């Protein structure tokens, strides 16, 4: 990274080039390009922006799940010892709600985003984009959200509408609590 001298020089250049900046602010940040931060730029927006190249199907996802996920999420994602991922539709208003990807999660983008950044627990960020698409396809298919043969990629996943998409009431900005 920059030596202090370079930072000072750069800050001076920035100040000269962009007079709107506050003169009181230290300006010690270094410019960074999208290519330089690609490895950290993992977030997927709910409309699918940020989804990478690659694809996968439920069939390939099933094999990866058996190898890397079943130990925590059980056969077909039925849960134990960790979260149940499948089923539960129609239970949210009952006294025993079952919150899963299929019954509760409002956006399919979140499935890809979360698996890619945090799963599997013992080896986060170890899966390829194709593997993440495959697992997403498998879990959506188990939940009946997509069909077993559907190919998940940046285009198709962005179009998936989740069953509980309308199940949330936004409380911010707050009215009364």
């Amino acid at each position, binding site marked *: 990274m920059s030596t202090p001298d370079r930072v000072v020089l750069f800050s001076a250049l920035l100040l000269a080039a962009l007079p*709107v900046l*506050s003169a009181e602010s230290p300006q010690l940040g270094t*410019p960074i390009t*999208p290519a330089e*931060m690609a490895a950290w730029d993992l977030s997927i927006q709910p409309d699918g922006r940020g989804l990478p190249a690659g694809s996968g199907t439920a069939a390939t996802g099933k094999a990866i799940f058996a190898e890397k996920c079943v130990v925590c999420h059980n056969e077909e994602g039925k849960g134990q*010892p*960790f979260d149940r991922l499948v089923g539960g539709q129609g239970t949210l208003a009952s006294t025993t709600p079952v919150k899963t990807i299929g019954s509760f999660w409002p956006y399919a983008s979140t499935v890809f985003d979360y698996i890619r950044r945090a799963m599997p627990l013992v080896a986060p*960020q170890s899966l390829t984009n194709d593997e993440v698409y495959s697992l997403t396809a498998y879990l959506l298919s188990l939940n009946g959200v997509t069909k077993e043969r559907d190919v998940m990629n940046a285009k198709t996943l962005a179009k998936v509408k989740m069953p509980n998409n309308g199940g*949330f*009431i936004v409380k911010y900005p707050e009215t009364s609590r």
Partner: protein
Amino acid sequence: MSDKAADSAFQPEIVADNGLLHRRLFLTQGVALFGTGGLALLAARPAGAETLTVPTWTKTIGAPMSGYGVPSKYEDKVQRIVRPGAPGSPGTGRSVTPLELINGTITPAGLHFERHHNGIPDIDPAQHRLVIHGKVKRPLSFTVDSLLRYPTVSRIQFLECSGNSAVGWAREAAQQSVGNLHGLLSCSEWTGVPLSILLDEAGVEPGAAWVLAEGADSAALSRSVPLPKAMDDAMVALWQNGERIRPEQGYPMRLFLPGFEGNMNVKWLRRLQVNDGPTMTRDETSKYSDLMPDGKAWLFTYTMGVKSLITSPSHGFKMQGPGLYEISGLAWSGAGKIRRVEVSADGGKTWGEAALTDPVLSKSLTRFRMAWRWNGGPAILKSRAIDETGAVQPSRDELVAQRGERSNYHYHGIQPWSIAATGEVTNVHA
């Protein structure tokens, strides 16, 4: 509310039934004002002092200085209560602050509660970066050393997990200590760089409305923060209670959002992405949303509700016979300052106003105290906080009537403690 007149000029004024005394008892210079009557109340202690001798530590040379002090060895039971996650995932659980074993309002850094989603990362500060990108004119990367050169602010604020006190939703009152029940709550002096300075340097573009914050831990936990909050009192915190933030609190830096639910105060902060909308991450949709009885879930319930707890006496305490006791507890609100705390010793039939210990700060813990003359009979103690917006802490029944029993998060109902004639203190829904 009943305000009862003082029994006489030499007696503490009784302000509510079953022995609650006026807060003046603590606000003035001790009990001398009450004359012998007041002193007599305090004198409920065993007669016959022991004969004093000069102990060894007064007659021998003491220990030398040390580089970093630790609590007395006699206080080694003052520990966080560790609740690991599922087997094989020790980094997914929590540890809670033992609220019954500490006093004042500042939590020692080593006792600050923990909630991690995949353990504590071992971050080399020389390699750590904070990146600001997205809808900004100048995407920027900051080193830790560069951020340490920025202007700082210091604020004393509480941090509370939105899942704190969740056992309160259960129909049966759990027989656990106040720390076990409510210890996902701590308060520190946080020092850091106002986030608005960094966002201004990056230059937020028109149309931006949210900032996604992400951690460098192996959960890469991410939450969307509304831009108005990010530009208001949000801080990139580098220091806690005077020292650099501990690893379990986000070393080398964390986001701090005063009054907002704990999970949004992203630890090990490495990335801020300015966006036009919320990212709808797993930890703001499938978790940390509040399921209502009709099956709809409340999304983005950020502000922690007005709340209070009596920490002494509380579950597990044993009353030492009738006499004068100090009721002591904590009150806080994510919306601002605590205006008033009321205490009841008769299960909520009558209430008296407690003394608030200065300073009373916004979005911080406030210690309240109340004098209580326990007559040795059954009693139910409650506290009820009111914040500067006028919000009143609800009872459990009121909370359940509004939100049902399945919402998991944001439980802030009144906590009753039952005092039995035997002196045992237990948790009750009352």
